[in-house]
């Protein structure tokens, strides 16, 4: 057995001598991200879809870290996964009643969508492998940490570029790229507007006429009514007990 294991090891020795852990981790995260993305499409249960999406986006954050974009990776985890997806999961929980948990599509729609998706994928993959410079890095160097330059860029100061008119820029004013102060402020105001708008849209309204779901519930029997009561009390609990 030891002779066979040595033989096997000898056969694999040259590749084992140079395992690039960055590549291994990249493939791990990439496989998880893509497999979970495909699982989102293939799953029927909406709660499971949400869970696979969480896994996929978490793996994407890992990919961001591997590419050296640490700030973007942490931001993906905090805002996208920890904020947007929590919001999505809340929405799923509030609407995950038995008839809607697993809605199936007709097979003709599925074939058509599959064909379109396959065509798009072929086009994208082809373009990805067309440029030689994208295939292999010449020298893999992690580069400087990007949190501070990114922060400064959001304040309007580009520290990674030579300043306008400086000798490093050849005295030219045109090479400098501005910071991102204006988009930053716009996005801040945008988020505020969205917050107010979404809160207004989804507010709990006092109704004098019964809601469509209550009507549907009362028409289908006590079981669904109980589920509706549970759902409305869940939303009441979440919104702090107000009617």
């Amino acid at each position, binding site marked *: 057995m030891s002779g066979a294991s040595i033989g096997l090891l000898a056969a694999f020795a040259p590749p084992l001598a140079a395992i690039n852990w960055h590549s291994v981790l990249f493939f791990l995260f990439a496989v998880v991200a893509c497999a979970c993305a495909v699982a989102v499409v293939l799953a029927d249960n909406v709660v499971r879809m949400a869970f696979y999406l969480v896994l996929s986006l978490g793996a994407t954050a890992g990919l961001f870290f591997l590419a050296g974009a640490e*700030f973007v990776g942490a931001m993906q*985890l905090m805002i996208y996964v920890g904020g947007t997806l*929590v919001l999505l999961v809340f929405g799923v929980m509030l609407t995950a009643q038995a008839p809607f948990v697993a809605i199936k599509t007709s097979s003709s729609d599925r074939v058509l969508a599959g064909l379109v998706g396959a065509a798009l994928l072929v086009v994208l993959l082809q373009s990805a492998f067309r440029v030689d410079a994208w295939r292999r890095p010449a020298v893999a160097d992690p580069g400087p*940490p990007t949190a*501070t330059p990114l922060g400064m860029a959001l304040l309007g100061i580009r520290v990674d570029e030579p*300043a306008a008119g400086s000798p490093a820029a050849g005295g030219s004013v045109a090479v400098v790229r501005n910071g991102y102060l204006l988009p930053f402020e716009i996005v801040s105001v945008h988020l505020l507007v969205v917050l107010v708008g979404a809160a207004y849209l989804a507010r709990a309204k006092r109704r004098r006429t019964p809601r469509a779901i209550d009507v549907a519930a009362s028409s289908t029997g006590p079981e669904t009514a109980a589920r509706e009561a549970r759902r409305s009390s869940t939303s009441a609990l979440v919104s*702090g007990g107000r009617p």
Partner: protein
Amino acid sequence: MADLLINTFGLPDWLAWSVTAMVAAVLILNVIAGGALVFIWAERKIAARIQDRLGPTRTGGRFGWLQSLADGIKLLAKEDLMPEGADALLFRIAPYVSFCASFCAFIALPFAFDVVGQRLNVGVFFVVAVLGLEVFGVILAGYASASKWSLFGAMREAAQVVSYEVPLGMCVVVPVMLAGSMDLVTIGEKQAGWFTNWYLFHDPFTFVIFWVYVTCAVASVNRAPFDLAEAESELVAGFHTEYSGLRWSFFFMAEYGSMFLVSALAAVLFLGGWNGPVPVARLLGLSEGTGDTAHYLVRLVGCGNLLLKATLGVLVMMWIRWTLPRLRIDQVMTTCLKYCTPIAAAMFAGVLLWQLALPGGLVRGLPHWLSRPSGEIREGWLEGPGGRAVRRSRTTSGPSQAAPRAAAMPEPSVSRPGSHGVAEVRP
């Protein structure tokens, strides 16, 4: 450590890195699991003493040392139940999601100078982000249990954790602002020296922010008085009602792990991290070069300091749990939105103004402020070469802006052990 393996033992690169990673992972796992063991025993003893009784006194001697082990054996031997209407995959996977979130946050937590799983430039951001992912395990557990108690508990907890992330983020930004970096190693290193260097004593606003952080951290990990998710008197056991045996113990390892993590984070951010109250190593003149035995000893003591501070934090959390009554969900939300968030925002603004007027903290900044010349425009403190703070003042606009801009680019995060804290440039 990888360099040690490569240079001393001649291991190939990839093997050295994988061994290092595995050692780090095993160590962190032991911190969480061993910590959970100790904390469960400590919780029972503290709860007992606060309630004027004794607690475990039989298993393993007079103090019940082995009570946690007995609990663990009992949990392992329990029947693995799953409710009939439960979603099998989600029910099974929920405890592991919670535990993974708690575990992954330890990757970026430093235990001493440069003793960290992965030294991230955005360490603070990463830890707070991953802490917020624990809520998924809770929601999945609540939904997949197919029981209304679990669902209610899960939704309450999710709302609570997500709401308290806002003031928690604001509280955490204050030490980042004081240190000028999100790197946890840098933040801890800046507080080296006497205990007056700790950010807790930097200015009164940071002092208040620390207590707001404690409140938000206790709420984030769902400890009493914010533990509605597990409110035994109301919801049976909340989101983990249907869990028993090993699956339940994963939830609790996640909870104790998170408690330890937020305490360790508070220690690094506010309480000086691995620096003791007295800078013994510096007074003794111990060299801090790499590879030195004294250097390793200093780091070991640093680890011990941090573990001690984090354990104290956890014990304080236990003390609070068994002293204060539980808050209702609307009271929890009121505390977050009407108290914690405005106070955190106001204190944040206060620290901002303090930094502009009196950088360097109360102890070192006041003499400097009292002796500064009048009529000088100060831009603020930035990292110059050598890890020292340079004052950058705007003189005129135009071509001279190129020089301050180039100087504004801080050094990449290589903070030498010799540069203790922020050194002021005398005018």
